[in-house]
């Protein structure tokens, strides 16, 4: 727990924070586009495509719409980027260097996850565009829809492990016993958390707040140039972070203490999770916002509560 300030900055900015997460996250978006292309019998973009997109956006002009408060409109994406960097650091540090975490980091992770939709809502509401405002209101409804099942899913694993609130302790519990995914309550919690994360990422069938064909990008409609690059980078980093989140909390982390092949196989877990996300994304149509609300508040909430009840009786 005795970390110098220098190490904290190294963790935050280089590894496993900002730099590592952004490179891997951009690579993840390439995997996403390539797998999507292969599903549609296309060739797909080259490996460095996300990096080209990012640097291209950095070199373009930025517009601030008339009547938009400059500080909030341009500042919101930066807050999002910062919060996702901290989030990935907190999640990865306890996996790479067990013992370097602080008590209650599970709750910090929950709050940092809430930052991303809040930042999108702030930026879209500040853009003084009615279509962006529509996207913001949809993002807000969607956030209210998936937040409760997500909380129940996390409460399930906390109850299952006997009240551990530290990510490192939860990982230790999974290494000594079994990953939460391999129990009835944990599997239910995983399924509901997985669906919540699909909505958190704004992927089909829950891309209602962005809906390119319908509301022209919704929350990110008014952004251009470097600010759009920051938003795209935030999304890419969130992509990686979500797969790490699901692996760490439900699948025993990507780094198990066992040596040898298990070590390498562990890295395939987040990849397996994103391939599943991409398959769902490519085989489903977009839902309406009322359908998404109904889906989360009836089916997913019931699933997660069932998992929670199973965990309280010890299954």
């Amino acid at each position, binding site marked *: 727990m005795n970390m110098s300030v220098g190490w904290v900055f190294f963790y935050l900015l280089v590894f496993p924070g900002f730099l590592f997460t952004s490179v891997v996250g951009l690579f993840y978006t390439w995997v996403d586009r390539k797998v999507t292309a292969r599903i549609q019998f296309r060739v797909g973009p080259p490996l460095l495509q996300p990096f080209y997109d990012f640097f291209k956006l950095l070199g*373009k002009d930025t517009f601030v719409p008339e009547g938009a408060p400059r500080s909030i409109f341009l500042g919101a994406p930066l807050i999002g980027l910062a919060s996702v960097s901290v989030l990935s650091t907190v999640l990865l540090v306890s996996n790479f260097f067990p013992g370097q975490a602080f008590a209650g980091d599970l709750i910090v992770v929950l709050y940092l996850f809430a930052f991303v939709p809040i930042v999108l809502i702030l930026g879209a509401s500040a853009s003084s565009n009615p279509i962006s405002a529509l996207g913001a209101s949809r993002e807000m409804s969607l956030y209210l829809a998936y937040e409760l099942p997500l909380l129940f899913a996390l409460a399930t694993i906390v109850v299952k492990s006997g009240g551990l609130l530290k990510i490192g302790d939860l990982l230790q519990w999974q290494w000594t016993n079994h990953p939460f995914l391999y129990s009835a309550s944990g599997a239910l919690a995983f399924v509901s958390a997985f669906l919540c994360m699909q909505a958190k990422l704004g992927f089909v069938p829950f891309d209602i707040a962005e809906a390119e064909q319908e509301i022209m990008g919704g929350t990110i409609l008014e952004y*251009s140039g470097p600010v759009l690059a920051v938003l795209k980078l935030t999304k890419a980093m969130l992509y990686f972070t979500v797969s790490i989140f699901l692996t760490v909390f439900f699948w025993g982390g990507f780094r198990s203490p066992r040596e040898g092949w298990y070590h390498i196989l562990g890295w395939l877990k987040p990849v397996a999770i994103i391939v599943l996300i991409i398959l769902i994304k490519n085989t489903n149509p977009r839902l309406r916002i009322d359908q998404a609300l109904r889906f989360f508040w009836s089916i997913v909430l019931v699933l997660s509560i069932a998992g929670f009840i199973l965990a309280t009786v010890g299954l």
Partner: protein
Amino acid sequence: MLKGLKKAALARSLWIYHVAASPCNNCDIEILDLLTPRFDVERFGLLLAPSPRHADLLLVTGMVNKKVLDRVLRVYAQIPKPCVVAAVGSCAISGDLFVDSYNFAGPLDKHIPVDVYIGGCPPKPEAMILGVVRAIEKLKKLKDL
């Protein structure tokens, strides 16, 4: 070096925004063909952008008439520079058989700077890919961006 990186990145990642300036819809159908699995322009980094604010490549189809001209100019103004404009189809290039029409506002390059001309009525997707390749070549030759 930074400018070179900027230019190389732009040439490899043109996001398309498509304006239908009173077309007969044939060019638009061919543009949609361009984005289908058969031609797959995502190989070259081309993507359909949802909003002009995200776009780099503006495709204008149809003969620009007096009513739609204002919208074309506004969309062009909303695209963050540097950007590339392509006139798709004979109508956007010259007016084609509507050249004597009472509401024809003149060829597209009279109003906004056009970088590539893709002829045809409608142009084949292969012709559009050639046009995009020419746009990329043109971008690479540009000194200041």
